[in-house]
């Protein structure tokens, strides 16, 4: 087969003068949906993960457990359709919410359940004496979580969070189903119009790889900056200074 990369210079006949400009805009949508979903997922995930291990009472751990099971057990595409088709049928006001916001919400909630489990695991990996020491100093449970437990637990879970952050970018491809003109939609549409599927899909794959790799590098930098010497096993592995 012959390559025809000049297909990206052709005119799709719409808002964008060429296919590559359209593709970059689609990349922007992918990034916008992913980053907003990731921020939402991190905030909710840390909160729910902390509540999963909450020692006072049974309501909050159960609520957080239900949250995790609900958002983790239902396939992402089904969740997107629930947000897009079912909820607006019940609450007509939601019909005006744009598809990209719904996609970010769906992706954010889905990922929050996964991050919550990682945060819970991080908290449970700490020796229990740590929390007890905080409480013995007179901190409330909330203060103890904020000042003592979470700062250590979050450092522990940075590596799994990295893969989760990369997953968000890849999972954002389901947003095409709710009319967000992101990379996957561009690929499906442009390959149909140009009949050059291999070139289009290769370019789009390249952009996904670049996005995921950028997230990976950012998280690696975060991991390095946040490291407390002697706390995490990774430090012992990485540090051959000793």
């Amino acid at each position, binding site marked *: 087969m012959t390559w025809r990369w000049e297909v990206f210079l052709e005119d799709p006949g719409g808002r964008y003068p060429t296919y590559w400009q359209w593709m970059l805009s689609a990349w922007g949508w992918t990034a916008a949906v992913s980053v907003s979903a990731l921020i939402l997922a991190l905030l909710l995930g840390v909160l729910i993960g902390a509540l999963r291990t909450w020692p006072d009472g049974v309501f909050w751990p159960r609520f957080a457990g239900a949250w995790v099971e609900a958002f983790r057990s239902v396939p992402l595409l089904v969740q997107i359709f629930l947000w897009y088709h079912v909820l607006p049928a019940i609450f007509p006001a939601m019909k005006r919410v744009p598809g990209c916001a719904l996609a970010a919400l769906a992706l954010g909630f889905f990922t929050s359940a996964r991050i919550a489990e990682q945060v819970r695991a991080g908290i449970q990996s700490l020796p229990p004496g740590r929390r007890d020491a905080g409480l013995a100093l007179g901190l409330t449970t909330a203060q103890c979580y904020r000042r003592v437990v979470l700062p250590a637990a979050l450092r522990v879970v940075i590596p799994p969070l990295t893969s989760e952050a990369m997953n968000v970018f890849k999972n954002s491809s389901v947003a095409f*189903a709710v009319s967000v003109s992101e990379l996957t939609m561009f690929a499906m549409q442009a390959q*149909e119009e140009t*009949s050059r599927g291999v070139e289009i899909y290769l370019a789009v794959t390249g952009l996904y790889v670049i996005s995921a790799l950028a997230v990976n590098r950012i998280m690696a930098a975060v991991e390095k900056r946040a490291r407390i010497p002697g706390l995490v096993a990774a430090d012992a592995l990485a540090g051959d200074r000793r």
Partner: protein
Amino acid sequence: MKKSLMFLAAAIAAASGTFARAEGTLAKIKASGSITLGVRESSGALAYSLGDGKYVGFHTEMAYRIVSALQKRLGLPKLDVKTQVVTSQNRVPLVQNGTVDLECGSTTNNAARQKDVAFAVTTYVEEVRMAVRADSGIASIGGLAGKTVVTTTGTTSVRTLRKRERAGVGAFKEVFGKDHADSFLLLESGRADAFVMDGQILAGAISRAKRPSDFKIAGEVLSVEPIACMMRKDDPAFKKEVDDAIKALIASGELAKLYDKWFLQPIPPAGTKVGLPLSAATKAAWARPNDKPMEDYAD
């Protein structure tokens, strides 16, 4: 390292070369005693699946008729017909690399594809129209200003709409359904005011709706696309046989009977009627069989 890479490249080039210089589809059919048809899962009444590996539809049945004609011409006592499901994404590569010998589904004959594959004479001319709710009062594309229009991702209708957008014909909002069922759901639930798509797909979707009388096809023809069977390029002997078979079906009235069967009579699985009479454009294509690309139909 570099040498092994070059060897790999040479091996790939040689492998793809064998496909390119295959001695023609007719010889291949004769030698193997089999032909592979490209079929579709869901291309409206043109070509669809009933499940259980059964593929039917106007173009699918026509493909089987073409195969019987080929079998007679080649004097083969037995010809094994294999089917291979294709999608819009993979149909051109699968025909090019020899996996599929003849693809009769819903492939538009256009200039871009003609660089890669050949087309038989046009057997169906698709007209892109719009479906609206019957009580919406929308009668033409001009009536869409400020409204929401839905179409399906990965179809040529998206491009038709985009061209109108650039021309500035009434500003409307576009949304894109994941598939035709999804797009129709958006029209049905009121999220969209019009669904722009191939006429036969609209007619099929309306016929399967809860209350078909709630919807109608309205407005002018937005774009015209010739649909034809696709085969490998640079194989004039095979193309001639396929074209002759189709012309014989037209001349004998068989093709008109097939059209009636799939577009005007109740069809499986649900026994609904598409109810789309033969269009003037399709009639014209049958009267003068040709393989002109879509660009020659420019409005």
